[in-house]
């Protein structure tokens, strides 16, 4: 057990949660660990964290990290609405939503997209295994065309790619990764949390029990063989100073609202994360080539988030009292008299 304390004076264990009840080897468990690492290293204060989720094995995971934080395991596919409301009630909370591919791309598709459209300031993590784990292995809408179910059934539909959909909507932060690739997932989680606006992070997270067999395109082996990272991501939080020791031209450095930096190191051909259409092209090409493109696909640091556009005060709305919320007695009588 590591006892080094982070910037808010907490050990790594302070970010642990209840023991997982998921299957041994479930990708979701790795993501839980990446989450713990990211939150610990960022030094997020537990009482400022709100863990939101829908229903599914994936949606259970908020119980498995930062036990002392508030969490809300809502109803199936409706995490975005709950998160939106909670955020509006208290802008000071760091909203961290966890969902599954069924939760997001089937029943929750509408809420997922409308949250993006509003650019609600939150992190939205999809633990994407192409199947309905908790209901025992039916195909989800992210399952690839031709992907084979454990019992042999073949998926005959085009997948709904959450990242492609998010890009089409002009989502301000779109990334994809793989639960087995902590080196990439952890900085992306940090970046998503630091970003102000809706950050979509679609993490392929194999279901060892129902979707980790040959013929599945969401199995560990398939993903390992087909992952194509578009760039090495590293994250430098605002409380550490940047020291870029790369030769010029090999990296891109993007600054976020809170002063943190995302540093992208070129791998193969260069991808400009501020170019939405390039991001769409990269996804389309990957899909055509049968690759799983991972990394930070798109980032727009300029787009205003909903609360800012709506001119909400920094002070949480929940904290205002009668004095701030009720008009004066005189205004009231004046107002009533106007109905005469």
């Amino acid at each position: 057990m590591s006892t080094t304390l982070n910037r808010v004076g907490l050990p790594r264990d302070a970010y642990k949660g209840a023991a997982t009840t998921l299957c041994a080897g479930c990708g979701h468990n790795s993501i839980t660990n990446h989450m713990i690492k990211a939150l610990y290293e960022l030094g997020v204060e537990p009482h400022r964290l709100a863990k939101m989720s829908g229903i599914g094995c994936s949606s259970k995971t908020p119980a498995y990290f930062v036990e002392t934080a508030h969490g809300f395991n809502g109803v199936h596919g409706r995490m975005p609405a709950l998160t939106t409301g909670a955020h509006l009630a208290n802008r000071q909370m760091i909203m961290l939503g966890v969902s599954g591919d069924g939760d997001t791309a089937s029943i929750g598709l509408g809420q997922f997209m409308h949250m993006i459209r509003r650019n609600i300031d939150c992190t939205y993590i999809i633990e994407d295994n192409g199947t309905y784990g908790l209901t025992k292995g039916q195909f989800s809408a992210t399952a690839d065309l031709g992907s084979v179910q454990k019992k042999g059934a073949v998926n005959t539909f085009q997948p709904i790619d959450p990242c492609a959909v998010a890009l089409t909507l002009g989502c301000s932060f779109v990334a994809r990764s793989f639960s087995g690739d902590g080196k990439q997932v952890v900085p992306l989680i940090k970046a998503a949390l630091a970003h102000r606006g809706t950050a979509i992070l679609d993490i392929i997270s194999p279901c060892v029990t129902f979707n980790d067999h040959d013929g599945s395109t969401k199995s560990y082996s398939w993903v390992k063989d087909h992952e194509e990272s578009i760039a090495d991501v590293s994250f430098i939080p605002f409380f550490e100073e940047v020291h870029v020791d790369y030769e010029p031209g090999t990296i891109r450095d993007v600054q976020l609202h809170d002063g943190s930096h995302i540093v992208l190191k070129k791998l193969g051909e260069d991808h400009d994360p501020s170019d939405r259409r390039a991001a769409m092209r990269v996804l389309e090409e990957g899909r055509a080539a049968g690759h799983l493109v991972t990394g930070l696909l798109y980032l727009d640091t300029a787009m205003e988030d909903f609360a800012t556009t709506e001119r909400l005060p920094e002070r949480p709305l929940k904290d205002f009292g009668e004095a701030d919320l009720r008009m004066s007695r005189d205004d009231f009588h004046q107002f009533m008299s106007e109905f005469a």
Partner: protein
Amino acid sequence: MTEQIINDLTIQAATVNGSGSQTANLVLTRAIFHMGIPVAPKNVFPSNIEGLPTWYQLRVTPEGHMARSDKVDVLIAFNVATWQADLKTVRPGGAVIHEEAFSTNETRTDVTYYPVPFSKLAKAKIQSDTLRKQLANMIYVGVVAGQLGIPMEALEHGVRRQFLAKPKAVQVNLDAIKVGHDYWQDNFSKKDPYRLEPMTGVVEGKVLVEGNQAAALGALMGGVTVAAWYPITPSSSLCENLIAYADRFRTDSATGEKRISVVQAEDELAALGMAIGAGWAGARSMTSTSGPGISLMAEFAGLGYYAEIPVVIFDIQRIGPSTGLPTRTSQGDVGFAYTLSHGDTKHIVLLPGTVEECYEFARDAFDYADRFQTPIFVLSDLDLGMNLWMTPEFKYPDKPFDRGKVLSKADLDRLAGEWGRYRDVDADGIAYRTLPGTDHPAAGFFTRGSGHDEQARYTESAEAYARNMERLSRKLETARHELPAPIVDESPQASIGLIAFGSTHPAVIEARETLAAAGKPVDYLRLRALPLADEVLTFVSRHEHVYVVEQNRDGQVYDLVRLALPAELVGRVRSIRHYNGQPIPAVAITEPLLQLEAVPA
């Protein structure tokens, strides 16, 4: 000519919607109100934007009756499509102001006709082509004014009041009214008995407010800071008014910051979800909808009940099932809202019966939500919500917010870990909660719609599940005693009682007068909340027969009343139902009641 009938008549304007007639009707209403005469307008409009029949019933009575009247004294016939049918609704001896072009041959001879060439007049006398269609309606205002004797001064007030926002519109409208008024003077001599005369002593200090305006104001004064909604008739105007009021009273003039967030959601599921998320995070939150939206909110309503989240849900009822008649009124959601969601879900329901209660209950609903940590349903309807009602000015709140059992950092220090989110320490079924953001290591807990124990830990334990469900029942029983109590009006000698609620109230008031006059005085208990209070039982026990009057087909509250009674009292209760989408008139109570009383029990 028969003797005069003064200040006691019902005007019905039959026009085409989207033609601007609504403005004319409101001017007429405000003018008469300005004369000191009580007014009770009912707008019967189609589920459509332009071109379909619409009716505006303006009832005036010296007593200030506000129920819909079942007969028309003065018809303003402006719509050829409904002309023949409209004519049938006029009572014998009534007056009919109609477009000259409408044929009156082989029609009724027991009414007085005042044919007016409205379209000709509009063409000839109204210059502006763009405004002609609109202003044509003002012409009939002038004619009615002449016929009933509404003074110019009152009409001027009416127009000014109506065009507060755009004063330059005042003159053209007055001119159009004058056209009608002159036409009356030049062409007609009074042949009908109806007159309006200025009154004093009744409307002083009163205002005209729509229930949805009242509810929006109530929510504002109740401290709502997050409202999520999806447009639907007849509830849209509630949140639209809230937005308007918030722009004026919740916006920091210096910084432009808003102390409220009103979100137009993508649908009703999302609307309630957002409100619940906000309530969970500690804001006073609400949503507003109507029947179809209530159905779509069923799953989230169950989460709110079981996870114990404060939230306020307004249901401005229209008549269903399904899409039904979106612009017609009903009390058809009561039973469904009361147990909205699968499993053993039960909710607190408030039943405002006046616009003043729309204001007060909307305001207090947020206290109830916080105190009982559960969704609060406020059931209004189209009649209450979208019509103008004469009401005393509302009272400025005299109490601070009641945020209920919320633990602060200091409380948690004091309790030193001795706290469980779902522990019933006060034996009232209400447990203590902490809000996200409370800076204390013990503050955090996990909220879920699945099984949990007193410490908010996940469990599938049969005992823990049953314990929790029993506490939830206890909580509702606690609430039952603290919700707005029924209002009982009894006269010593009456052996018959009426139980009603919501917008049925004015019809009951009028029915009681009629019945008393007919030598059948009836007592009255007006329900104001569910679950039912004990007063219902004692009221029934004091009467031989009790009639539950409601505006739905299935006698939803009649059923709830019977279930709340000991067996020996059940036999005393009878049901009176009105369900055609029109606001219930007094006769819909008096007639069935007298019939049922006629048959021996």
